[in-house]
């Protein structure tokens, strides 16, 4: 059994991850853990990430070993949907107390496992490790093993205490637990040439059910969905699938790649957000299944379904075009669904602002994802005032985002739509895109905005927090402009790489000091672009703007 640190190292070595593959040996050792900023950090911990990834398995009891904070403050907070068991929504935790901290919590954990089995008899229990028991040395692997032997039921340790890193590391550690303890431990009753796995899909708001009927119609069987509306047994025999789709996210790439390595299940990375992406994904599934032995006629049927659904969706979107004419959308989201959503929004006649996205061709896809990802990073770092300025400068009619930016947008009386995980509408598939258009339309044309934008009778028009914020920002800018030393300071303090917190000055100094001319060189000396890599473009721009190092040397 591998130790936690070895598993983490293994995850960092993930060759399937483009970002990792581009790193030097030393950087890989450091891993993809974002340099966490005390007093300036946002986002969940590794335990959070592990729980998010696995909790959608519906018939499993998810038992959290730790003090009350880890589970008591967070349970029942995800919008995944289940077609069967509701066990996943119940919360189980050892709620460790002071005595457990002093004498160790292993006994309590063991008893807790027994209680869960006696009362709920689930097909399996996932046991999550958290910081405090990890610190005091509770060995959950040993407890799980003993409990599994004693009770004759899979008890799976998920070793991902919060302090080992951020959420996305937790996603991967969760994947490792599945690979090590679950996948390949059972056999399906029967297999078909049409069996696929869907990896990294959580069925938020039940949105995967907007795609599943199409797969059903084509006779394609989802052998296992990891993890949305998933069941333990399906997961355990998922190694018998013919092909896999990794839903456009790097969250569980280690699962997809290692299943390819171990069981020869080829996978592709796709998405069901957006009309084009949905069609591409359906085609790819069909193509892979045919390659693995399914009859070739599957493709014809797939094309027919695609043609039918696309025609319906475009026809439904048509009616929005006149209403969306000249309307601008400010879209800020992490990489996942950006591209597909961009394409669909543009198709409906909306203009995307705020990111340098023009009418996109397919080749721009990666670039757009990077830009959007970078913006999503940036907005987390902004003060509300800066955020408002950004909204104002973009002169958008509606903002689509997730996270804390919503409150600034809404309080500025700007239409806003949630496209992140907490949302309550499913935007997946062909129906989902039409639904998104409907929601945008409702938000844009709500008569409420006009009322809210009117000042109160006793207020001066134009004296509100928005104008104050703008005035303050302008005053600040003027002050800085008047003082060349300060202006230079501010210019140099501009943050370029948000993951590794590297500013412009540091990069310029490194370029000058070492005569750098490549992004890799900059990365080596400053660590900039060593995180998500999305700021590469900006580093390139900085390099281009520098006087050639050769000339400098000649002077």
């Amino acid at each position: 059994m591998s130790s936690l640190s070895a598993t983490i190292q293994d995850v960092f070595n993930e060759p399937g991850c483009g970002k990792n593959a581009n790193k030097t040996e030393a950087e890989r050792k450091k891993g993809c853990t974002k340099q966490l900023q005390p007093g300036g950090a946002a986002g969940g911990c590794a335990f959070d990430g592990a729980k998010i990834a696995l909790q959608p398995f519906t018939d499993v009891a998810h038992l959290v070993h730790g003090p009350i904070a880890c589970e008591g403050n967070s349970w029942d907070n995800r919008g995944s949907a289940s077609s069967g068991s509701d066990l996943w929504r119940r919360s189980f935790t050892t709620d460790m107390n002071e005595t457990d901290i002093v004498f160790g919590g292993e006994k309590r954990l063991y008893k807790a496992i027994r209680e869960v089995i006696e009362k709920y008899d689930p097909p399996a229990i996932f046991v999550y490790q958290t910081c405090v028991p990890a610190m005091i040395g509770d060995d959950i692997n040993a407890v799980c093993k003993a409990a599994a032997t004693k009770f004759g039921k899979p008890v799976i340790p998920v070793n991902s205490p919060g302090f080992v890193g951020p959420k996305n590391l937790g996603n991967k550690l969760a994947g490792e637990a599945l690979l090590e303890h679950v996948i390949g431990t059972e056999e399906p009753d029967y297999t078909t040439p049409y069996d696929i796995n869907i990896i990294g899909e959580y069925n938020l708001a039940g949105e995967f059910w907007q795609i599943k009927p199409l797969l059903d119609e084509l006779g394609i069987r989802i052998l296992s969905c990891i993890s949305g509306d998933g069941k333990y047994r399906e997961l355990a025999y998922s190694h018998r699938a013919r092909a896999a789709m990794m839903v456009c996210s790097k969250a569980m790439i280690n699962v997809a790649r290692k299943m390819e390595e171990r069981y020869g299940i080829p996978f592709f990375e796709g998405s069901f957000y957006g009309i084009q992406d949905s069609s591409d994904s359906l085609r790819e599934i069909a193509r892979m299944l045919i390659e693995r032995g399914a009859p070739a006629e599957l493709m014809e049927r797939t094309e027919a379904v695609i043609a039918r659904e696309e025609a319906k969706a475009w026809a439904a979107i048509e009616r929005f075009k006149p209403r969306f004419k000249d309307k601008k959308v400010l879209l800020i989201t992490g990489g996942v669904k950006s591209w597909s959503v961009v394409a669909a929004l543009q198709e409906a006649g909306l203009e995307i602002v705020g990111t340098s996205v023009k009418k996109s061709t397919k080749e721009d896809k990666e670039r757009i994802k990077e830009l959007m990802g970078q913006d999503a990073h940036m907005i987390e770092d902004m003060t509300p005032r800066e955020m408002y300025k950004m909204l104002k400068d973009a002169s958008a009619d509606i903002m689509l985002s997730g996270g804390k930016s919503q409150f600034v947008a809404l309080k500025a009386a700007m239409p806003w739509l949630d496209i992140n995980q907490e949302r309550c509408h499913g935007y997946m598939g062909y129906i989902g895109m039409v639904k998104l258009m409907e929601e945008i339309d409702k938000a844009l044309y709500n008569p409420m905005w006009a009322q809210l934008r009117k000042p109160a009778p006793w207020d001066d028009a134009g004296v509100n927090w928005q104008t104050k914020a703008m005035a303050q920002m302008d005053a600040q800018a003027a002050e800085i402009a008047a003082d060349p030393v300060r202006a230079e300071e501010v210019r140099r303090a501009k943050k370029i790489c948000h993951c590794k917190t590297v500013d412009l000055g540091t990069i310029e100094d490194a370029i000058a000091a070492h005569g750098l001319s490549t992004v890799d060189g900059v990365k080596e000396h400053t660590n900039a672009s060593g995180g998500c890599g999305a700021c590469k473009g900006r580093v390139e721009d900085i390099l281009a703007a520098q006087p050639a190092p050769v000339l400098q040397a000649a002077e």
Partner: protein
Amino acid sequence: MAIVTTSKKACSVNPLKMSQPIGGSFAFMGLRGAMPLLHGSQGCTSFGLTLFVRHFKEAVPMQTTAMSEVATVLGGYENVELAILNIYNRTKPEIIGINSTGVTETKGDDVEGFIRLIRQKHAQLEKLPLVYVSTPDFKDAFQDGWEKTVARMVEVLVDPVEAGTAHDPTRVNVLPGCHLTPGDLDELRTIIEDFGLKPSFLPDLAGSLDGHIPDEFTPTTIGGIGVDEIATMGQAGWTIAVGAQMKRAAEAMQQKTGVPFRLFERLCGLIPNDEFIAFLSEISGRPVPAKYRRQRGQLADAMLDTHFHIGGRKLAIGAEPDLLFDLSSMLHEMGAEVAAAVTTTLSPVLERVKAQEVLIGDLEDLEDLAKARGCDLLITHSHGRQAASRLKIPFYRAGFPMFDRLGAGHQMSVGYRGTRDLIFDLANLVVADREDNHQATPDTWRTTDAGLQVVPPQLH
């Protein structure tokens, strides 16, 4: 007198309890220009933050020292220092409120010591109030974190007053428990001001989390009581503490400044409000305004109208001690039977709950008890929604968190008016439930317990 027992289970199922560090952060959120900071791993803050955002539907300031595995083992001095400096530089706070968590308490970080060192090292922090409270996750509950934090605020932030100094009889300190909503605080403010008194609320969540659109957007809290005002609370004539949890802070205030206090364990129900209004009349020397005489009449009438529906109900309630005591007592006084009561932590009020037994346990316990005892009204926070749908009984959401309904910040239970609205809401739930689920049919009396049991005559 209720017997207080503690659940013997090793596994807590569907927790009622939340951790005390976030209860501490919650208290800091009622201070103006504040940044609550949890000394722990980033998940500790992130979970709490998400919970508050879901409850209030507002941007909520909360930061983390982002402890990594290595930092946790080596000690968190550098992380605390960096966090304070970063918050100071980026958000210009008027105060930083620090609570410890399970991780840093297990290691045993001496945060008070850290703060002294940090102040020595960074002169610019000299005037910035830094309040630290020890709140390990593996002890106590949300309400305790609030209790300790407010008491600590009094100890650190209120200027001492020399014995013999004259107090301002028109000023009143209000120390509200964490079970009161921003709506409750605004109601209390109105009532107190109507007696010509000037209240200072510590903390004042109504200033920060009532959902208003602020004049100026800051990354810290957008309102609440200012540090300057807290400093002068020692000049007040009286302190009113609401909820037994606030006794500790009220005593600290009295000790430091000589301000006497009156503890109101409850502010929901007719009699508790009579006492409250009479007290305000007494300390202000003013007669009770006509408005409250009318409101009292309205509450009395509401009690008459609703007792048909609330009387005889078997209540299952899960809440932190002060809220449990307040709501269950009020409903008991309306003729309901408190058949199942579950809470999170010890408190002197528990044995006075009008029930056979109060269990320190979880929502699984509450669900089981409600089922076994045939309860037909459930009151707890939003996490009770799954139990409610399985039990198929009317469910009233009360307490924190309330994430699946809107307007949590404005739901009221205090005052004549708050009690009036609350019992109307409860009675309406019961009425709707009867109409939806318990309409009589020709066979109802035969097939359910609603009719008399048919006992065949027997000869002895």
